[in-house]
């Protein structure tokens, strides 16, 4: 890679040097003040024409180089059900545009080379040809019609949520600069929530009066059972965020004041993905780079970077403030049993609130001895807010 870079730089320097020498040469020979010496001469036409040919070769070479060297950066096999359709459409589109790219760039630069100006050469007065115009209107129409149809079918497949599959409902909650997930519990229904309920440990503003919310479980990393359709409901606390799941070919903006949604079915567990050929290779590359960096860090006496192990991640993909670049959440796709074991360990919303109330009343009891009044005070604002929130939802 560095070699490639050095070659480019050297080539550019060579061209620059050559040109500068030409400038000196030309400035010596043409002393006259007004003439057309700044208009391209036959010589200029010739070497610029040749460079045009060189340029299209350069374009082909960097295309091949990039596909060869950077093609491996393309994401691993999609870890979601709809992702394979997505990838197929992507490859069809890339293949198509590369064909068009190669042909049109080739023609453009080849003509620039072939028809470079010469004294006495006559251009062809060729102003119009309806047949040609028709051909290159109709061909894009047909090709694009195909792509549009293909794209739209895939789009509606992905975006239409199939309620019959009984997807597991999970809320993803975004705030500056982290994510929370709220599992809907046994009833598979999320309790109502609004930022106006946020208080104390109730950091997501879940409505305590809504019984659906009691079994909700709020966590900081996302565990998904493999092959189980999931319906994500997105809610934001402050500004726009975007929930981007690159490995699942899924993304949806998170908008304050409204609930957006996206549904997919994870199909590859984290463990399977780690062991895939692609990921083994990738992790090895990343760790090589990190080891190299560690040598530098060790020399300066700084703490080394951790060795990297692959985990799926969710990241924020809509500019949301200073910490935007590090707003991530770990995603773990695992077997049904592992998932059940994990979720059983998590504390439900009612348990969290009970704990808080217990410790609140302990605190309240000891010094003031006015439990009744205290409780009233603390409930008062919440009731007001609940009314407001109810009105909004109606």
């Amino acid at each position, binding site marked *: 890679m560095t070699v490639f870079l050095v070659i480019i730089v050297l080539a550019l320097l060579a061209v620059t040097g050559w040109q500068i020498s030409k400038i000196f040469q030309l400035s010596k020979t043409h002393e006259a003040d007004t003439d057309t010496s700044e208009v391209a001469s036959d010589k200029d036409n010739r070497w610029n024409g040749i460079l045009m040919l060189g340029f299209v070769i350069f374009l082909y070479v960097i295309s091949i180089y990039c596909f060869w060297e950077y093609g491996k950066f393309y994401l691993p096999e999609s870890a979601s059900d709809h992702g394979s359709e997505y990838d197929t459409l992507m490859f069809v589109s890339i293949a198509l545009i590369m064909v068009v790219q190669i042909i049109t760039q080739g023609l453009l630069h080849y003509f620039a080379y072939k028809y*470079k100006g010469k004294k006495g050469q006559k251009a062809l007065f060729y102003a119009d040809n309806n047949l040609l115009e028709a051909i290159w209107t109709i061909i894009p129409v047909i090709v694009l019609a195909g792509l549009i149809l293909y794209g739209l079918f895939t789009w509606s497949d992905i975006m239409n949520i199939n309620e019959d599959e009984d997807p597991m409902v999970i809320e993803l909650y975004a705030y500056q600069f982290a994510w929370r997930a709220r599992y809907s519990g046994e009833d598979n229904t999320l309790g109502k929530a609004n930022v106006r309920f946020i208080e104390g440990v109730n950091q997501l503003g879940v409505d305590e009066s809504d019984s659906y919310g009691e079994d909700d479980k709020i966590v900081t990393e996302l565990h998904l059972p493999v092959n189980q359709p999931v319906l994500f409901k997105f809610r934001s606390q402050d500004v726009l965020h975007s929930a981007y799941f690159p490995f699942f070919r899924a993304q949806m903006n998170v908008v304050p004041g409204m609930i957006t949604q996206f549904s997919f079915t994870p199909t590859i567990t984290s463990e399977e993905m780690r062991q895939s050929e692609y990921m083994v290779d990738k992790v090895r590359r990343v760790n090589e780079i990190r080891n190299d960096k560690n040598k530098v860090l060790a020399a300066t006496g700084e703490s080394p970077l951790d060795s990297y192990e692959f985990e799926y991640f969710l990241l924020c993909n809509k500019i949301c403030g200073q910490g935007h670049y590090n707003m991530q959440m770990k995603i773990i796709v695992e077997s049904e049993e592992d998932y059940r074991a994990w979720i059983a360990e998590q504390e439900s919303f009612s348990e969290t609130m009970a704990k808080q109330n217990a410790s609140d009343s302990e605190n309240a009891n000891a010094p003031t001895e006015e439990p009744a009044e205290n409780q009233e005070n603390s409930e008062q604002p919440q009731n007001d807010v609940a009314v407001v929130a109810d009105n909004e939802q109606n």
Partner: protein
Amino acid sequence: MSAIASAPAHDHHDDHGHHHKETFITKYIFSQDHKMIAKQYLITGLIMGIIGIAMSVLFRLQLAWPEKSFWVFEFFLGRFAPDGVMTPSIYLALVTIHGTIMVFFVLTAGLSGTFSNLLIPLQIGARDMASGFLNMISYWLFFTSSVIMLSSLFVEAGPASAGWTIYPPLSALPQAIGGSGTGMTLWLVSMAIFIASSLMGSLNYIVTVINLRTKGMSMTRLPLTIWAFFVTAIIGVVSFPVLLSAALLLIMDRSFGTSFFLSDIFIQGEVLAHQGGSPVLFEHLFWFLGHPEVYIVILPAMGIVSEIMATNSRKPIFGYRAMVASILAIAFLSTIVWGHHMFISGMNPFLGSVFTFTTLLIAIPSAVKAFNWITTLWKGNLQMNPAMLFSIGFVSTFITGGLTGIILGDSTLDINVHDTYFVVAHFHLVMGISALYGLLAGVYHWFPKMFGRMMNKNMGYIHFWVTAVGAYGIFFPMHFIGIAGLPRRYYTNTNFPYFDDYADVNVIITIAAIITAAIQLVFLYNFFHSIFFGKKAVQNPWRSTTMEWTTPVEHMHGNWPGAIPSVYRWPYDYSKMNEDGEYVITGQDFIPQTTPLLENEEEMNH
């Protein structure tokens, strides 16, 4: 119509002798002469361009060597770069202001403002714009808005940093990001003034093209430049007011407690009173301008390129009528595709389908234009002047960037590449680099008309070739890290070890960016040096057919010393031949528009 137009023109000529009282101020500063205003637009645009590109070099340094200390940061960013390390907030601010400056101040005002002002009166045969006074106000409002935008760089909490799309609530709440305080207020004020400037300019262009064409200059004899400027002005009049309304509503949300775009927000420990607004509404309003805006940027470049290509190929532009039709089609479609920026904004997926359909439709007129340019080169006698090189470069980057639009315009594929570096690569090639090539081509081509001198061609060649290689060096590899899932607007990618092996690509991109930015100094030197010391230009150095080359080299108020010449033919009679295979005018491969039909000539269907 042309009879009406020529009457006042003659009056103008009669009192020509009174024009010698011009002072320095009326000639160079508060000038009402369209040629001077064009130069003012160009030089202001170039200065803004220098600032915008310098900003991109700064944040590219950060992206290639994240959180490293550089003396340039300390020098330019001061307290925003403690110990020479760029902070995340100033990174976002640089990205935001870079986008704003390049899109609006360089590529809208600098490109369309310069060449519409210069060429519309000269190429249609008018003494000046319909309203010279309005034209002057338009420039000075643009200047004011530039000054305000630049002054926002110096406010305490930093300039606007919510991205050039300024989506609320981030842009509405100073609690969310520092730049959304005074910096954002100045941004909005600056843009409101900019929009006023743009509207005055656009209305002037439209009225001038419709009313002031000289005798014989029918709409189908207009050069494609004028068609492009004319249609661009119409799109501007249709869409810029919508941005103004979005900006006004945002100002109200920010300062007067309304809730157009804000709802259910808890920030820094308190719930805000705002209720019932929707950020998605803002996105619709913004992109209703924002998408046509990219065509406001690219159409003038297309017009300029068509004109320069025909002249330097010594051939008529291929498919003049198809070119005009595709400009009109693009203009119409550009106003109904804005939703493709919002496929995953939370709007109804059905709307996504509609916008996919309209978006991919716009590829058709674009394809027609690209094929027509390529055919224009075919069997030509190409004169490789720097302007011609930049025009060919334009077609190349327009195709490369345009093709990836097919991926982004497809709602399905957009899901996983939305807001990644793939998008950055796409729009920089198709509208950034392409429009800059259009601007540069225009400067090289019409420099003799503007300043009466020639630019140095050899410096032009160096400038082109290094820029052409550098621009692809920046943006071609960028597609690959984007499609690998790397989000844009990240201060650093080091928090995701998964992205570690893309770091090398970022280094290559940054080096290419530095080289490309540095070579622009050659252009700047050439430009400013040639204004004063360039070789004196002849009247028609490129042997072109259009009317601006029939005016004297020395500028004069009113453009033509005598009566305005009439027009007898379309602007693309290059290498037109008789039946016996000789040029119609012996020894001359072009026929100016002002030349009446010759005896031995048959008029083609134009």
